[in-house]
């Protein structure tokens, strides 16, 4: 599995500073200020970013939405969609492979776990090169949306048939 414990320093992620934001856009969902979080065991964010569990129904929606989660751009998921990407592993049964904290880490900033990954960081607002103006200083998902997707992924257990 590519997402092993090939760990680099999670320091910068833990220290993600409060970033200033322009008015929130329909596409870019991040809101100021970014919630601070703590990385544990170098691959997990055990605490919910919002302090509450997310809504799995909404999470499924965000995961499919082309302008938000984009998850199906790269992952096959147990949903009824004509086009799903193959560049990442199938997310079927993913909850049997990862804890909630690990899933949260992967969505927030997967480069903490695998520096070379193709998967974007969905809750990171800076440190990028030449971001288009409309997205500068913004995260791809809001903290609520991250939690919703975590909640949805947690329903994807092995043997799950939808």
């Amino acid at each position: 599995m590519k997402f092993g414990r090939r760990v680099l320093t999670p320091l910068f992620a833990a220290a993600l500073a409060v970033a200033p934001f322009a008015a929130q856009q329909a596409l870019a969902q991040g809101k100021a200020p970014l919630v601070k979080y703590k990385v544990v065991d170098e691959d997990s964010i055990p605490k919910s970013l919002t302090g509450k569990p997310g809504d799995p129904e909404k999470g499924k929606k965000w995961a499919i939405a082309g302008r938000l989660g984009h998850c199906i751009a790269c992952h096959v998921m147990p949903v009824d969609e004509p086009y799903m990407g193959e560049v990442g592993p199938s997310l079927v049964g993913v909850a049997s492979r990862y804890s909630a904290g690990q899933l949260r880490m992967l969505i927030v900033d997967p480069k903490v776990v695998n520096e070379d990954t193709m998967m974007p960081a969905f809750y990171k607002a800076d440190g990028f090169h030449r971001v288009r103006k409309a997205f500068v200083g913004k995260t791809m998902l809001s903290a609520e949306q991250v939690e919703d997707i975590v909640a949805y992924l947690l329903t994807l257990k092995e043997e799950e048939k939808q």
Partner: protein
Amino acid sequence: MLRISIAAVALAAFAIGAVSGAAADDKPLQPWERKENHVKPPKGSPLDYLVSGYWFRTPKTRALQDDDFENPAFLWVEQAESEWTTVDGKAGKSCSSCHDAVEKSMKGVSARYPVYSAKNKKMMAITHQVNYCRENYMKAKKWKWESDKMLGMTSLIGLQSRGMPVNVSIDGPAKKFFEAGEKFYHQRRGQFDLACVHCHQGNFGMYIRADFLSQGHSNGFPTYRLKWQKLGSLHRRFRGCNNNIRAVPYKRGSPEYTNLELYLAWRGQGLKVEAPSVRQ
């Protein structure tokens, strides 16, 4: 259609709860996977084999490219043929005044472009050279990079290299431009934080949403894209690939994109020139 069938296989796999990918392993080799469609990469290439974007497209799209009468790009090529002999500018010259028959003078030219121009001390794409001739030798106005006239002319010139292997020079004065292009190719950019190498080296032959990834070669440009309903330049494609990952694109004809063009041509060194190709 290929992409539908793959999605169908994936869905069918869910239906029976089997997600091990066994179904995928039994598929016959796709055109892009077949040895006879592979070309040996240049020395030092990161790829095990080269395969043209052509082989990643559907039989229908390939058929459009195979037949010059069906290939919509030839509407532009025909215009360019008459442009070739049309006098324009204060010097009272046409391309043919200096270059005679395009079939002879432009044979093999596109295959070795972009080139380092000692005179201009920069990398020149064919498009730069055409405008150089227009401004300096014809005393005529430049054509816009993405104008019908320019796309037609670069297609007409490209056509004279059809079937010839891409063969750019990356040594000597070209080296530093090549290295800049190589760096660009590997630089992550945009909110998606992706580099060219992620999509076109690590994942060709895979779907990213509804798009079937090729090795991202330049041998087919200019390309008639069905999605654009128009001929388009390589630099337009670069802009698209930058924009999609929410990165600020560069200008067409910029030094950055011209260096990238050189590096990309080398990645496809040995592939046959297909200009003007047809893509999805």
